[in-house]
């Protein structure tokens, strides 16, 4: 059984909010599925046909399997995302300190400059991937195809 001090249990109590949100989120998913199932059972017509049973693709006819080899560009964007994700995590401890440093003006400016440099270094990376076109989504669909259609 975990051994906790009074202080810790006090602070853990603050996480009850998080836990309640988590439980409410999980409950919401199951409740909405159950609700839609019950309503479908009460109100729906049960006349299945092959088109009804097929995967819904926003009006498109589903072609082939849903497991296709993904474009490498998804992966590059995910990689870029992780870098800036880590940057956001680095902001957390700084943000707490910054709020308290606001009492002293010189201190706050120093804190701001520290984080400004941190972010600035990473913005160089953002400019790089932007200029190289990694963030450009419609790239190899090509201007050629567009021109051919027009």
């Amino acid at each position, binding site marked *: *059984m*975990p*051994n*906790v*001090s009074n*202080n*810790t*249990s006090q*602070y*853990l*109590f603050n*996480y009850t909010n998080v*836990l309640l949100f988590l439980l409410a989120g999980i409950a919401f998913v199951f409740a909405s599925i159950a609700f839609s199932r019950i309503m479908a059972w009460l109100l729906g017509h049960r006349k299945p046909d092959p088109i009804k049973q097929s995967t819904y693709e926003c009006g498109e006819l589903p072609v082939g*399997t849903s*497991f296709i*080899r*993904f474009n*490498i560009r*998804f*992966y*590059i964007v*995910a*990689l*870029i*995302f*992780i*870098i800036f*994700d*880590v*940057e*956001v*995590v*680095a902001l*957390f*401890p*700084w*943000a*707490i*300190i910054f709020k*308290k440093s606001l009492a002293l003006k010189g201190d706050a400016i120093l*804190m701001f400059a*520290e984080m400004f*440099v*941190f*972010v600035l*270094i*990473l913005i*160089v*990376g953002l400019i*790089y*991937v932007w200029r*190289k076109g*990694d963030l450009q989504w419609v790239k190899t669909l090509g201007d050629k195809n567009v021109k051919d259609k027009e």
Partner: protein
Amino acid sequence: MTAGQILFNVVFYFFALLTILSASVVAFSRNILHSAFALLFTFWGVAGLYIFSDAQFLAAAQVLIYVGGILVLILFAIMLTHRNPREDSGQESNQSSSVILASGITVLVYIALLAVYLPVNWSGKAASYGTMTTEMLGTALTRNYLIPFEAVSMLLLAALLGAAYLARRK
């Protein structure tokens, strides 16, 4: 036991159980996509256990980076490499050399884990750094370890450039 302590224990064992069960799904599932999704719950459970260990910053980082980032990357990696992950890959190598290598690595990992686990006096009360660990970390990063903190930014920049360059080359 007060109601608070009971709740505390229930939540603790919930997270512990979540971590262990989902981790075993990761290890034993035949479908790599199921393993990846089970890893989501493992990461969540570990984040919960971090909160129980007063490591709030680590918990936040765990949720943001591992649940939000690394897992997406793992899923993309699976979808990039596997033609159809729903099918059993069936590429199990039964070569004795790879079996011996895998067992050897596993034994070494367990020896390393035991070397960490055994010397610790688990019954004693853990050293507590209080509940202001994120604030302490912020002070340390912005005052005492400013240069390493900015160097982290440079490291991230290098990682970003390298990753984008390598991924683009195909």
